[in-house]
């Protein structure tokens, strides 16, 4: 059953403990354990407090199984402690027991697989463990006499009452009567029946964990590349910090087995006080260069620095990464600034926050910050380490226009106010303007900033109304103390064939409005009608393309993902090819793993699936986010063509200038209310 996993799992993680106290958990281990704990805790709590969710209670064994398969037991233990605490805090002993059940199911299944053993081993381990658990449970129940008597009496009288009620019904009455006598008998000899019951649950549950884990592990291995090689966690951080001056000579990087360099040879020197910008399109190896600056070994060329990189250490190397949310580790703003520092280090948190424009926000929860605020906080946390070298890797890709300028302003001031060298990696050439030097990676792709001829506004105005948003308001968590208005009395209409740009800043309610228009959410008051009927009654009639298109592509390969989105059979290659052709993708992409696609390709594949159903209305949420200029221009050009064919479209974006050729009409939201409805009729 475990064919395909050799004796040593290919992507299990072997631990090196260089530079860290022995036995302490490594960064990757902490993150994986925390993720598993969050998942198990959520599943455990849900199974207790949400009626009907009990069915899913055992699914917590899957994350635990994956963790146990990839990591040593100690990591699983940390996850178990954290998940148990979450379960206990929210749902009491019930939550704790629910979590612990998933822990042993997943741990047994995962560890048996990690050791390359099969079903027989799993069953015998489970049998032994089941005996221990049964003895423990019977012991606890024996000790808690009072509780036991109450529970037994409650069960007994429930079954008894049921038997009395149905006594007169011919066959059912007799059957229930027999059941009643059996239950009474079990309750008298409870230790035996309880023990056997617990043992069976352990056996059955562990087998269930095993049977779900087997296909999931195989699929995860197929779909993604999770090897730790090349990740920051694999960097040897033991030498004393001395990252500058760093000299890169013809440095290149090629993944094992690849036929071309991910990073083509580049030479670079950075010293204290330097502000170096690195630009290049997606796929030119920018992030690989960041990892090499942070201490990864290149496959070609040489890197010279006086000491170690000192990642995250005093006077070492600090990084600000692309994913704003995932790199913030503290729960409050001030917690994040000090996160990971030695316990005795004193830091002036307020001064650091002031420098990045977050003064007075030390006590705010990090979960409520905007993308731009998160990235500025990441800069403050980097500065708390007084780094000699600071590397910022595409820090503005996920940040809106206003936020982007604030982040760039902070970065540009760094070399003046601190003794450090700054390497700013970006795919927006304009962000490199204030650097002392610019290094270009990859081929020089010239980008035409205005490729598409605008769609004429006049050709689309006469059509019938298809979407009516009438006085829509929406409150989150309505009726509770956490209630918060998201939309206030929003009204507008969209006619057939129209292109509308819906813009607004962070927290303006754009996404909520998109969900209401797609029918995923009902307005608190007012109505949202598509062809005269509420959108929530016709889910799927409005197509919604997520910003994170990856979440919509649920199958392993692009072709199958398109089929799932379009409602095709996955064997209908003709239909899939036509759908891919409609977004100008070749047929060869159907066999490519989703995780190997670029950001632009992901959006196109999602579009292919959505358009194949000829939606009445297509909503695109931030279609340009995370794309480099060339990919943005390509996508806008494609969308303009789709619009010309008469597709009604609403584009949600903060990128007004790039999208105006596509959408002649702009609607602006500000704090949940409509600000303006400008129609550029006279163009």
């Amino acid at each position, binding site marked *: 059953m475990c064919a395909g996993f050799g004796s040593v799992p290919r992507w299990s993680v072997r631990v090196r403990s260089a530079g860290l106290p022995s036995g302490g958990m490594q960064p990757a281990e902490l993150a994986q354990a*925390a993720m598993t704990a969050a998942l198990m805790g959520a599943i455990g709590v849900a199974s207790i407090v949400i009626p009907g969710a009990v069915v899913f209670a055992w699914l917590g064994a899957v994350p635990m199984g994956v963790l146990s398969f990839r990591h040593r037991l100690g990591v699983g233990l940390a996850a178990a402690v954290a998940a148990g605490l979450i379960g206990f*805090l929210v749902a009491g002993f019930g939550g704790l027991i629910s979590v612990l059940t998933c822990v042993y199911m997943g741990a047994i299944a995962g560890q048996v697989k990690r050791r390359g053993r099969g079903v027989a081993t799993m069953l015998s381990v489970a049998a032994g463990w089941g005996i221990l658990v049964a003895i423990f449970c019977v012991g606890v129940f024996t000790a808690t006499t*009072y509780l036991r008597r109450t529970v037994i009496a409650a069960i007994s009288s429930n079954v008894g009452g049921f038997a009395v009620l149905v006594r007169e019904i011919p066959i059912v009455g007799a059957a229930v009567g027999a059941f009643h006598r059996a239950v009474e008998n079990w309750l008298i000899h409870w230790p035996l029946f309880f023990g056997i019951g617990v043992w069976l649950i352990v056996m059955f549950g562990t087998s269930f964990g095993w049977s779900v884990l087997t296909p999931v592990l195989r699929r995860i291995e197929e779909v993604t590349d999770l090897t730790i090689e090349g990740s920051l966690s694999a960097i040897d951080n033991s030498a004393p910090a001395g990252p500058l001056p760093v000299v890169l000579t013809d440095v290149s990087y090629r993944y094992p087995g690849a036929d071309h360099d991910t990073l083509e040879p580049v030479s670079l020197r950075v010293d204290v006080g330097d502000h170096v910008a690195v630009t290049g399109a997606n796929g030119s190896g920018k992030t690989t260069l960041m990892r090499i600056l942070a201490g990864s070994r290149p496959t070609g060329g040489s890197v010279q620095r006086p000491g170690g990189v000192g990642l995250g250490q005093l006077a070492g190397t600090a990084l600000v990464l692309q*994913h704003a949310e995932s790199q913030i580790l503290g729960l409050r703003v001030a917690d994040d600034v000090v996160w990971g520092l030695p316990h005795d280090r004193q830091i002036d948190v307020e001064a650091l926050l002031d420098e990045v424009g977050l003064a007075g926000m030390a006590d705010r929860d990090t979960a409520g910050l905007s993308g731009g605020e998160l990235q500025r906080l990441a800069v403050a946390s980097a500065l708390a380490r007084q780094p000699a070298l600071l590397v910022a890797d595409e820090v503005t890709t996920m940040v809106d226009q206003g936020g982007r300028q604030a982040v760039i302003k902070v970065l540009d001031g760094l070399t003046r106010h601190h003794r450090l060298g700054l390497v700013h990696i970006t795919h927006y050439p304009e962000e490199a303007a204030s650097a002392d030097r610019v290094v270009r990676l990859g081929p020089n792709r010239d980008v035409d900033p205005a490729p598409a001829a605008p769609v004429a506004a006049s050709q689309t105005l006469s059509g019938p109304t298809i979407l009516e948003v009438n006085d829509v308001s929406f409150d989150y*968590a309505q009726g509770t*103390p956490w209630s918060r208005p998201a939309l206030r009395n929003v009204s507008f209409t969209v006619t057939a064939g129209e292109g509308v740009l819906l813009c607004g800043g962070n927290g303006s309610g754009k996404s909520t409005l998109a969900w209401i228009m797609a029918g995923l959410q009902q307005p608190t008051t007012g109505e949202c009608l598509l062809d005269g009927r509420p959108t929530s009654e016709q889910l799927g009639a409005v197509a919604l393309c997520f910003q994170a298109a990856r979440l919509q592509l649920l199958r392993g390969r692009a072709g199958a993902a398109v089929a799932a989105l379009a409602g095709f059979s996955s064997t209908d290659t003709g239909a899939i090819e036509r759908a891919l052709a409609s977004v100008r993708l070749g047929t060869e992409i159907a066999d490519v793993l989703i995780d190997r696609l670029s950001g632009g390709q992901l959006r196109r594949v999602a579009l292919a699936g959505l358009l194949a159903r000829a939606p009445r209305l297509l909503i695109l949420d931030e279609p340009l986010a995370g794309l480099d200029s060339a990919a943005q221009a390509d996508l806008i050009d494609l969308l303009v063509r789709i619009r010309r064919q008469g597709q009604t479209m609403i584009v949600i974006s903060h990128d007004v200038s790039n999208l105006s050729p596509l959408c002649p009409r702009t609607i602006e939201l500000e704090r949940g209310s409509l600000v303006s409805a400008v129609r550029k009729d006279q163009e």
Partner: protein
Amino acid sequence: MSRRGRRNRRPLMLMRPVPGPSPVHNLWAGTKLLVVLAVSILLTISPSWCAIGLTASLILLAALLGGISYTCIPSVPRSIGLIVVVGSVFTIVNGGAPNLALGSVTVGLGGFLDFLRVTALGLVLLGLGAVTTWTTQIADIAPAVAQLGRPLRLLRLPVDDWAVTIALSFRMFPMLAEEFRLLAAARRLQPPSPEKRSRRVELADLCTAAMVIALRRANEMGDAIAARGGAGRISAGSARPGWADALALVVVAAMFGLVLTG
């Protein structure tokens, strides 16, 4: 379920404290953890009406002091109400039958009272956790666990690693929740597949999608931790127990005394 009814349901809000401050908000998170643990154990040892009543009063007192209104309680689905009604009917009908393991209880309402007690016990335990999470900043929990667990270090248990894991899992919660919300929405928008797919394949599909999302998040977070040079401090504040905490513990100790001697 009618659309009207669905619109007005109050959602369940977990791990989100109500706006403070209040005397209960101000208690050290470790005190609240200890109280919840102690009272849970007490109720397990001795689930008497006295203990359940005292715990209920403790919850009411905390709710009153903490400014928790009844609107925090999510709407209870009808299925739950139905189960309670059916259970009550069954146990009341059974009233006449002798209770095997509990001979001393008055014949008649005996079974019903037992059923009521088990239900009340469950409610009180849930209420205790709810009041705690509604008055405690999530950020304060992990540091408190680290302090409470300090004695365990003598047993060479990695308490600090555990505290870091707890703090990070709280940090990961909202991110994963948002991604799973999107994942669920994507599935709702998807048309039915023309092929007949088995439950098992569907389940594996869903688990894989969720795990890939979660693993990717964890990889990014692992990189971020590595970029900070590994774990160390997790909190900027240094909350310590004060007089109010001592008072709270005295109240709970008195409760223990009443229940166990009474």
